[in-house]
């Protein structure tokens, strides 16, 4: 099916986790605490008046919590989503206790679904209110979707390759998979990889109007219920989460605490119409089959599977069908979703990877799969194993 790489791929481990999410902020310990608590952050929207919007729930990052995570200068200069990215990526690097040196071998991979729409809206509104004189040269750079990566790279001194990927539902998964590929391929020795999104009132209202958020025009109550019979759409969250991926030998040599090993990370696609998720459509080039095959594992080795299911009935059903086809009865355990805790946002993929890494670091055996599928057919598979 596939070629062999023409150069030896390096082993990749997870050595740090950093997160600023609706349940808390910090390193691996903060994520572990949020997962252990199991409480959902989803609640009625606080940051703006949802008014007569058909959706009224979200998982929001507390403003006071965010304010304490960046210094005053950054708080003044940076847009809110940039502050989220800087804070969480910094937490990840601190969690890994990694000194990037001159940063030339440190990479950054960021996934986002929506980018900095607040700035885009503010920039355009300035023009509509005051004409040419209302255009702010300070805001404009934020409207480019890689602005979060740009400021995070400056804060981390990441001078290696940095990349921003844009994708619905699985933006963070894709960024982590990219980060693993960068390290495995020798293009960076360490990569801070994850995702970020923030709640933006105009975006929220339009998505609700378009009936793509719970309750999606149904009569059942609004809420995030992935894979449940009464699932009726995602609930938006916000935040940023990153993991630090390092070349294994270098990590061990510096005495890093290794949470887990990335045994494989691939992405694939199923060519279907944009925004659709046809549950009967199968994947001929499955990323899941590929990572398992490349790692020499079969589905029975999987102790855990985190899925992208976020309550969108089409995505949930498709994910179950695809995983069923790839894993069969041996891997038939229902995928877990973190969307009910943190809400759907670009940081969720890295939260899943972080959660899987933490679970493996406490387990005695097994491997974990972090699976992603989005409407439109983009698919990811990240296979993690215990740190040997």
């Amino acid at each position: 099916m596939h070629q062999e790489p023409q150069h030896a791929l390096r082993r990749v481990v997870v050595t740090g986790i950093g997160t600023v999410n609706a349940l808390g902020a910090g390193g691996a310990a903060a994520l572990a605490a949020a997962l252990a608590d199991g409480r959902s952050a989803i609640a009625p929207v606080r940051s703006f008046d949802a008014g007569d919007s058909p959706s009224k729930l979200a998982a929001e990052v507390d403003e006071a919590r965010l304010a304490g995570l960046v210094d005053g200068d950054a708080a003044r200069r940076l847009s809110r989503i940039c502050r989220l990215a800087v804070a969480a990526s910094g937490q990840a690097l601190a969690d890994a206790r990694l000194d990037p040196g001159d940063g030339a071998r440190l990479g950054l991979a960021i996934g986002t679904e929506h980018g900095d729409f607040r700035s885009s809206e503010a920039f355009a509104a300035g023009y509509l209110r005051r004409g040419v004189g209302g255009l702010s040269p300070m805001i404009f750079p934020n409207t480019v979707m890689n602005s979060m990566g740009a400021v995070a790279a400056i804060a981390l001194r990441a001078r290696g390759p940095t990349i921003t990927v844009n994708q619905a539902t699985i933006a963070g998964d894709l960024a982590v998979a990219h980060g693993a590929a960068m390290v495995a391929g020798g293009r960076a020795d360490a990569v801070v990889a994850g995702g970020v999104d923030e709640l933006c009132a105009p975006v929220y209202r339009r998505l609700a109007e378009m009936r793509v958020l719970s309750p999606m025009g149904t009569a059942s109550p609004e809420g995030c219920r992935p894979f449940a019979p009464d699932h009726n759409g995602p609930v938006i969250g916000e935040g940023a989460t990153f993991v630090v991926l390092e070349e294994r030998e270098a990590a061990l040599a510096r005495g890093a605490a290794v949470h887990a090993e990335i045994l494989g990370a691939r992405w694939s696609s199923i060519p279907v119409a944009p925004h659709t998720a046809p549950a009967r459509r199968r994947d001929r080039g499955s990323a899941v089959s590929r990572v398992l095959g490349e790692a020499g594992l079969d589905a029975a080795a999987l102790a855990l599977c985190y899925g992208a299911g976020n309550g969108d009935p089409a995505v949930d059903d498709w994910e179950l069908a695809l995983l069923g086809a790839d894993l069969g009865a041996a891997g038939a355990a229902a995928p877990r979703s973190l969307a009910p805790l943190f809400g759907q946002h670009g940081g969720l993929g890295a939260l899943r990877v972080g959660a899987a890494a933490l679970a493996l670091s406490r387990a005695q055996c097994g491997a974990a799969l972090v699976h992603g599928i989005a409407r439109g057919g983009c698919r990811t598979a990240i296979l993690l194993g215990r740190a040997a």
Partner: protein
Amino acid sequence: MTRVVVTGLGVVSPYGAGAKTFWTGLSSGTCAIRPVSLIDTEGFRSRIAAEVPAEAMATLGVSTRRARADRLALAAAQEALADAALTSRERGRAALVVGAVGGGMLEGEEWYWEETRTGRPSPRIKSLRSILPFTHAETLGWKLRLGGPRETVVMACASGAAAIALGAEMIRDGVTPIAVVGGVDALTRICFMGFNALKLLDPEPCRPFDRQRRGMSIGEAAAFLVLEDVAHGQARGARVHGEVLGAGTTTDAHHVTSPHPEGDGMVRAMELALAEAGVTPRDVQYVNAHGTGTVQNDRIEALALRRVFGEGGVLVSSSKSLVGHTMAAAGSLEAAATLFAIQNGLVPPTANLHETDPEVPFDCVPRLARPAPVECALSNSFGFGGQNVTLVLRRFAG
């Protein structure tokens, strides 16, 4: 290491549809920067840009109900696939990497303008379904039946070059033998207004490397390449346009909008690309520069080129003087220009260049294309956020 070759090219540019049309315009030194027709420019410092002509848009063969950027991307990618003569089975395995920034923002802005000004809901809200950059890749993947890994990379003005670098990496890493890669951006109000607000636009067509340069000109385009493992391409008898010998990707980590004052990230990108390619600066005859026409970019890029090549060590020209800065498309469009320069032994000129800045100690090929044997060339792309991508392209020698 696996060799990566280019077996398909497709372009929609301000000269019109088609890769050959692009090269004809570029090599003739025709500047395509004209008064803007797509958006209202009243009161702006600059009122010109390089738009894809309306008559060319009408002949793309893509539904006019699609977002303008999707139409550009579909037409260019279709041409690249036809040029590569891939079978449906091969398409089914091909990766897709799209560099994009503006997405379907042009149509999204029309919705926002209308609702804001009237205070009433607008049916244009449907345009929001295509507003995000990743929707280009969804559309291309679906319409062209590309079934390999798919992704959308947003690296500002280096996006198109980054797409090529990422596609080449996937082939070298053994992920896929074929990748359809490129960039696209249509003109948008936010982009035009933003660069005006930053006072980075020249009221006249841009003059990269000229002592009197006053800024850049915006353009729009789509350019896609089919990259292929050379063994795969040769086995199916593919025609080869050139070889992607290496790529270097770095970050300044210095400032969001200003490049590092010593060109640190640019130099490292060029050096990494040359190292991956296994060539030295003396093996390179031509650099298709990022060359925006802003005072700062051109001065620092020239400094970086001097650090890598020494003064006058290589021919340098800027395609942006002819077709404007096509944003996310620029990197792949200029890679196509570089491949044509190699194939034709003709270096495209820097238009509007009358007096080269003394701080630019290079022959910047003013106004007229220059016949020159080019075996190996660089294409530089640098973007907001200190993102630097350099590609090394070479004549394919079998």
